[in-house]
């Protein structure tokens, strides 16, 4: 099982400029999480702080009982072996060809023989679709290939935690879809904890178990995907729909006058930039048939159901609707509005702001919840879960 990452009150500033403050969240073991946020909100800085490349001003980041922020350098190197990190442009070693790049962690950290290394490297290269490019230098290949090679290198040590910094930037939609599938398949195979930082709405809606969003120097929300996907929070809503209308402006924040002017333009019929209303819970990406079931999904279901009553009504509705009838019976809940919908039918992505908690039936506090090791995270000012 992947390692759990507990981040508490993390604050980072460069000089007098605060990047974000008091970020508190927990990446549950073996689950896939996505961190969203407009450009320049410090998502990459957050990733780098989590692996100890940048030193946060305050706070803790605990992995397997080791606090990355305050531990000794020797311990830090040990903990980092648990990580596989995909950097924005792959960060391959320019002086080595792709084969040596991917083999590098194996040669540094293991005593495997060259034949064994070759087998592992070729397997990972095939996984990311780079068979035949082993002898190429990073300078000779396209950005997308570099990115995939970077992923292969991040995977060779079978990490417990995988961090991806914008895996989709510079990739075409088809390759992004393949990459999303690859990450989900990986999670099913090695049960690693995965954190993806991205702008890609499609990826954010279909891939993760948990979603978070950074904006205005803090964590706006972090929680089960249903919470953000059904959220009425203006920032989250605007971002997920890719509209100009809302609090996010071209330069991070917008003032009231600009907002009013845009509202007036929109009222007059000017297009606001979004194509459709994409709120609502959509089906999650599943592992390729034939692969084992994702253990994280099961653990997450138990965890989410145990905190269900703390979630907003719209999210509750979305979660309950996504359960199969047997599961609904198991947890002792049933959807009110869609009780007659046959199993497998998913809710349409329509606005559901008019829902309220009375529509959820069943006594949620005494639901038949299987025992779980999971502890609810502490509520930070920005945390949604």
């Amino acid at each position: 099982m992947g390692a759990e990452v507990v981040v508490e009150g993390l604050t980072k500033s460069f000089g007098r400029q605060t990047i974000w403050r008091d970020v508190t969240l927990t990446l549950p073991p073996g689950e896939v999480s996505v961190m969203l946020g407009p450009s320049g909100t410090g998502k990459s800085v957050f990733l780098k702080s989590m692996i100890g490349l940048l030193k946060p001003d305050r706070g803790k980041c605990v992995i397997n009982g080791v606090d990355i922020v305050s531990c000794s350098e020797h311990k830090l190197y040990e903990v980092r072996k648990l990580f596989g990190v995909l950097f924005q442009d792959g960060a391959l070693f320019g002086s080595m060809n792709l084969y040596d790049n991917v083999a590098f962690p194996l040669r540094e950290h293991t005593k495997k023989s060259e034949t064994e290394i070759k087998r592992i490297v070729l397997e990972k290269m095939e996984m990311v679709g780079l068979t035949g490019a082993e002898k190429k230098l990073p300078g000779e290949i396209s950005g997308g290939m570099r990115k995939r090679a970077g992923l292969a290198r991040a995977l060779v040590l079978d990490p417990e935690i995988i961090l991806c910094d914008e895996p989709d930037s510079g990739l075409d939609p088809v390759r992004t879809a393949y990459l999303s599938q690859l990450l989900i398949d990986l999670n099913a195979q090695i049960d690693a904890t995965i954190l993806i930082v991205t702008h890609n709405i499609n990826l954010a809606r279909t891939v993760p178990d948990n979603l978070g969003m950074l904006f205005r120097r803090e964590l706006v929300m972090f929680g089960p995907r249903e919470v953000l996907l059904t959220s009425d929070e203006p920032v989250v809503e605007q971002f997920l729909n890719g509209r100009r209308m809302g609090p996010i402006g071209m330069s991070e924040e917008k003032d009231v006058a600009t907002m009013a002017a845009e509202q007036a333009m929109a009222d007059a019929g000017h297009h606001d930039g979004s194509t459709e209303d994409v709120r609502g819970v959509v089906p999650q990406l599943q592992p390729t048939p034939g692969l084992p079931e994702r253990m994280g999904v099961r653990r997450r279901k138990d965890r989410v159901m145990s905190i269900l009553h703390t979630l907003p009504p719209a999210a509750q509705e979305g979660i309950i609707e996504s359960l199969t009838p047997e599961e609904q019976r198991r947890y002792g809940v049933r959807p009110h509005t869609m009780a007659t919908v046959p199993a497998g039918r998913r809710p349409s992505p329509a606005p559901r702001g008019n829902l309220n908690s009375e529509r959820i039936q069943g006594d949620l506090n005494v639901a038949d919840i299987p025992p779980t090791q999971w502890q609810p995270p502490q509520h930070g000012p920005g945390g949604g879960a």
Partner: protein
Amino acid sequence: MFALGLDVVRGFFQRPFQFREFIQQSWFIASVSILPTALVAIPFGAVIALQLGSLVTQLGAQSFMGAASVLAIIQQAAPLVTALLVAGAGGSAMCADIGARTIREEIDAMEVLGVSAVQRLVVPRVLASMLVAVLLNGLVSVVGVLGGYFFNVVLQGGTPGAYLAGFSALAQLPDLWISEIKALIFGFIAGVVACYRGLHPAPGPKGVGDAVNQSVVITFLLLFFVNFVLTTVYLTVVPAKGS
């Protein structure tokens, strides 16, 4: 920078040692600096011979010509010339290499893979520059003395026998030692400064260019200062011959 220096010294004794990288870097630094060093060393010996030559002839001390030029070359000129070229040719290339890796996040990637960049990249480079400095120092001494000999004997009409006999008049074995120790320390400084500036460039390609520039300038300044200190200490500790 001093912290990096300490880390590097600690890294000398830590395993695993990157032997391959060390050999590659040594070869690289040697290959870029041997020819310029030799070319600089010949005129250096010649200049000393020329300047001293006219002076000692007026004093009537031609027989000390060899002694003086050997002392000057071995004690001062050789380590400095070596270090300047190791820093200027090898160090700048090293700094640019590491700087480019830093801004392309390769160093970050390496750290994240659990490999210490100091251990993996910096230690072999610093050791290589130390080794090359010591070896080149020997070369510069020989070439410099030969250059001096050539100018003195062939162009200034000095006597070969007197020049050679003068070698041991003032120079002594500790002079050779201090020369090599200086070269060793200068090589260390050149390597550490180059790597430090390479690991901490200002962002962007221009930052790397500036870092290379600064690394060379800082190394030169440090070299002359350390040379002054070392020479003072040496002259106090080891009495000059004949006194």
